[in-house]
């Protein structure tokens, strides 16, 4: 069972990556920005796994698993930050967090 050519998988991966990036660039709620980052990473993961299938090696999959862990780590830290921001009674809007500029 072959299914569609791997190119298609990659196209999906690329789309995910792009849409994730779009989210980061577009959204102001830090939560959604974090989610978008997840999407980007997942796009990369999909690419990795596709290629590992293409080469018939498992390295890519291993890499993908590691990435999952790392992504989880980032999420933890990110959520911690968001909570801290919330504690400081600051509005959850990355645009409002622009005291540093120039």
């Amino acid at each position: 069972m072959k299914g569609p050519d791997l190119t298609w998988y990659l196209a999906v991966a690329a789309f995910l990556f792009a849409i994730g990036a779009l989210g980061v660039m577009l959204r102001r709620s830090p939560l959604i920005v974090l989610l978008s980052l997840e999407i980007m990473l997942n796009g990369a993961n999909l690419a990795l796994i596709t290629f590992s299938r293409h080469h018939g090696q498992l390295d890519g999959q291993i890499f993908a698993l590691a990435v999952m862990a790392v992504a989880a780590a980032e999420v933890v830290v990110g959520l911690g930050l968001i909570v801290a921001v919330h504690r400081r009674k600051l509005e959850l809007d990355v645009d409002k967090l622009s005291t540093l500029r120039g």
Partner: protein
Amino acid sequence: MIQTPSVDWFALSPSLVALGAAAICLLSAVLTPRWLLRPFAAFVCALGFVGGLVMASLVYWKTPEAHLIVADAVSRDRFAAVAQLIVMGSGLLAVGVSYSARMRQDHIGEYYALLATAGAGMAFLVQAGNLMTLFLGLEWFSVCLYILCAIETDLVGSLEAGLKYLIIGGMGSAVLLFGSALVYGSTGELGFSAIADATRLHDLSGDPILLVGLAMILAGLAFKASAAPFHMWTPDVYDGAPTPVTGFMAAATKAVALVLALRLLSVAFPEKEDVWTIAVAFLACASLAWGNLAALVQTRVKRLLAYSSISHAGFMLIAVAAANQLGARALLYYLIPYAAISIGAFAVVAARERELGETVTLENLSGFGWERPVLGAAMFTFMLGFAGFPLTGGFMGKFLIFSAASERGWNWLVIVGVAATLVSLYYYLAVIRAMYMRPAAELGLAPIGGSPPREVLLTSAVVAAMIVNVGAFFAIQPLVDLTRTAAQALPL
């Protein structure tokens, strides 16, 4: 029965030692009494860095020729060892700077633990041998730094810096990751040298996927090195983060990012040299232009230094772009005084900050040189070092870097560097001017604390930085020998 590979613990020892220190700090956070916590944790952390230094130098001494270890995941060579020396040294200085920082009492232990962990991660990263270890190492210390930046959660600036760094850093590592994925897809390999072999074997040098992957990886690394145009987070993060952390980031992060970039590009993509040298040169010019021009108009010293660090990334990228032994040597040499003086400079800023209890600007820096002679003199030499004046290591670094570019035949790059140096003079001298030359009326802003605090550790750290800075000029021969043998580990 699974045959686990033999692990060369000795080669990994620098990061392991630091990691061990981190663990002890973490435990001490819970186990030691409050009054003992600060000195104990700081001491352990410093000990970890010292141990790292020792082990790194041992590794350097015991490793005549480079080779890959632990199933080709990491490489053991002198290039990495020298980089680890730089990382550990700057970590040590950072500890000294952090000690008397007015920091939240209840996270001292974690702070030093994270500092040590970050150091360990960097030490690991510089010897990364394949794309996976590269990515993981990068994330390892990045996560630490995210937290360290935001650790002053009472301060909006610190939080903002942390969040910005996290978001942009996440994006950067995603880019890097996707790039590695593409490279993996094109060559089917993760190991650096394996990638090179595969490229040569299947003649992939024209493969667009590989090229795009390379571009993305380069972008990721440039981001970590805060090279324009991937630098925009730098001023904000440096500005908002606690000053000791800023110093550590400025020194160590840049160092490892650039060292790694050189290793990756030279080991994994020798076939593409013609392409990436141009790209790196372009990044260098962009960083020089942007960093210097933006720094001209800064009034907050931390931001000013942040922009200056961007321009220095540009200088070091010149060395990378040279892509020759001399360039590698120049990069390593340049990093030694550079790391010292950036930590030193931020340390001085921290000292002034604690005197005044507000952000340091060129205005309220006035008279500082006369009030605190030692710190003032040190800051003086730091600025001279940044500006590349003689009698400082900064000058020799620039000299070597330009020589490397010239040896490659890129004299135009030398001219660009020279022009950038000229522009940079303006704001470096502005700092000196602020410290020493204000009219008597403006002098002597009384520090809130009355007589300036005696910060033995900070002062000694600053003095150490000054000694490194000046010593690197006079004792250049040994350092050059060090870097020469280190650079020979790279296939340049």
